[in-house]
């Protein structure tokens, strides 16, 4: 099947080339960072040591789990309309898990020592578990997606030994969010994160923004290749996104209530900094309100049945949801967690161009993987259709 990835129209190759160029730029900045120092290339400082990149981990780990929202209804509830989307979702998850893992890798000051994590396994560290759950999820999705697709290719049903792996992947999906949330949720002295709603928030935002991103890409795929996941699949998926997104917004409101009704400064100050500024600093107020407005736009378009069923407005709604959650999780979650610092002082953080480019290159690696895997999947499905058509005639 791999040969399908090597045959494509010029558009396909131009896209691959674009991604490779972005990867090269990011790689250049990453090398520069390790030559000159994080202090020269990145905007991180001693009071904000996890910035843009760990934010990407928080967001893309959610995108990865979107697969669960498709695989679960398909295999457990026999939701037939997701048939053609399942393999795409699994391959999408593969790319997104790679983004998550690389987002952690690029913040490491000593990347050549990365295998110390395996050499000295440390069961009391959450990073250790995050590595286990992420790499297992990567393996499971690649295995399930590839085997099912290969069965399609051979025009047989997938082998029965795969079933346990499919169920395993379904059970495993939520764990990648929970463990990632646990990274930050259990730290004393970080009031913004020290809340039991953090893991549920990770789940809800993942199950809304992840499928939303997948849906936008699947509809784009339809435009580019004519590969249609089917109207029914789009409908069902948009309902899933709507419910998950409502729950996500509710969770954020719960958090706001707890923080402001209790009035504990450690819990309120990060919110005040993000939404109106603190100690004369208001670097992220625009972003915070943009996230709220985008969330409201997305919510409105999703809740009204007419706009949810209209493909154009649905795409707009999904983009609004993705952007809103991306600002919330990809930027504000980290910045709010670190501000104010342990001494109660606001030390502003601004990601630099180089830092963002490293992050964008990590996305590009993920999307390169998704592109190649989707190209294979679409080619398999389309060649099969061709055979059916020819037989029919």
């Amino acid at each position: 099947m791999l040969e399908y990835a090597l045959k494509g129209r010029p558009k396909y190759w131009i896209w691959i080339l674009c991604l490779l160029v972005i990867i090269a730029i990011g790689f250049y900045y990453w090398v520069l960072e390790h030559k000159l120092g994080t202090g020269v290339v990145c905007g991180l400082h001693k009071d904000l040591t996890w910035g843009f990149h760990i934010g990407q981990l928080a967001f893309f780990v959610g995108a990865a789990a979107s697969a669960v929202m498709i695989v679960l209804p398909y295999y457990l509830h026999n939701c037939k309309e997701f048939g053609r989307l399942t393999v795409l979702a699994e391959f999408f998850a593969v790319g997104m898990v790679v983004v998550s893992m690389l987002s952690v890798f690029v913040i490491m000051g000593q990347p050549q020592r990365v295998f110390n994590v395996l050499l000295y396994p440390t069961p009391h560290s959450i990073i250790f578990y995050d590595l286990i759950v992420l790499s297992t999820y990567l393996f499971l999705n690649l295995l399930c997606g590839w085997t099912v697709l290969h069965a399609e290719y051979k025009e047989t049903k997938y082998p029965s030994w795969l079933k346990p792996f499919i169920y395993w992947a379904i059970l495993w999906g939520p764990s990648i969010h929970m463990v990632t949330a646990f990274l930050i949720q259990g730290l004393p002295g970080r009031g913004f994160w020290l809340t039991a709603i953090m893991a549920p928030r990770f789940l809800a935002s993942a199950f809304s923004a992840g499928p939303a991103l997948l849906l936008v890409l699947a509809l784009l795929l339809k435009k580019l290749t004519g590969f249609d996941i089917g109207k029914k699949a789009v409908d069902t998926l948009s309902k899933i996104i709507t419910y998950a997104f409502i729950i996500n917004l509710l969770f954020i409101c719960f958090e706001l209530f707890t923080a402001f009704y209790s009035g504990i400064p450690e819990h309120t100050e990060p919110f005040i900094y993000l939404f109106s500024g603190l100690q004369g600093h208001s670097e992220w107020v625009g972003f915070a309100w943009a996230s709220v407005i985008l969330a409201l736009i997305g919510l409105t378009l999703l809740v009204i049945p007419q706009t949810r069923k209209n493909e154009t407005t649905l795409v707009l709604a999904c983009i609004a949801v993705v952007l809103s959650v991306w600002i919330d999780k990809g930027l504000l979650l980290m910045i709010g967690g670190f501000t104010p610092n342990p001494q109660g002082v606001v030390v502003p953080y601004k990601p630099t161009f180089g830092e963002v480019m490293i992050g964008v290159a990590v996305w590009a690696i993920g999307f390169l993987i998704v592109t190649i895997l989707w190209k294979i999947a679409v080619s398999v499905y389309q060649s099969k259709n061709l055979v059916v058509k020819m037989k029919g005639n």
Partner: protein
Amino acid sequence: MAIDRRKFLKIAGLSFLFGTGVFSLEEFVLCRGDEVLAQVVGEGKKGKVRWAMAIDTRRLTEEDCKRIIEACHRAHNVPDIPEPTKAVRWIWEDTFEHAFPELAEEDPSEELRNRKYLLLCNHCENPVCVRVCPVQATFQRPDGIVVQDYHRCIGCKFCMTACPYGSRSYNFFHPKEYLKHVNPEYPARTMGVVEKCIFCYERLDQGKLPYCVEAAKGKIYFGNIYDPEAEITRVIKENLVLVRKPQLGTKPMVFYIV
């Protein structure tokens, strides 16, 4: 007990002027030495060692702080980085508000506010940084000192995220390029690892006191807090002391005599 925090610290502030003051505090600001000791150290383990430090903020002058910081940073080849937000520091001086942010709103006395506070790694009995480190690069020795193994550190900065005191520094630059003085007997660090105060364990192992204690000329006490007869245990018991963020349960081993 009908005594709130604000009121308590006002009384406490008064007590500094008169040098007396016995309080029985039930909830929040632990201040009386024996009670602080009971909460942070508990019974202690006989025959075991737990190094602790008590900084006498009453007697510490600005010159003392400078001298102490200089002694530590010079001996340990701590780089002198001009950008304060990306600097490396093992021990530094700060204001009352920054050292005890949760007490800052309680209107501490002017005198208390004007003092200098030396901040450093607290060598917590229950260290969060050790819990989160994925490679055990930071670990707790049997004597309680939280050590950083630069050979193993992968530079993930999780410990800095976890530390509620901001006591850890990351090498954002090539540290050797910023050395003001070179101590050829001690290593420097490399870019991309986390470092912090190590209670001079290399000196303790050779039976010597930490550099800061030596440079403080009696204004910083150091010893085994599990030993009820030790000087450190005695001075903590007999004075009003604060520890940083006791509510987090990290059990810091650096005490501030106020």
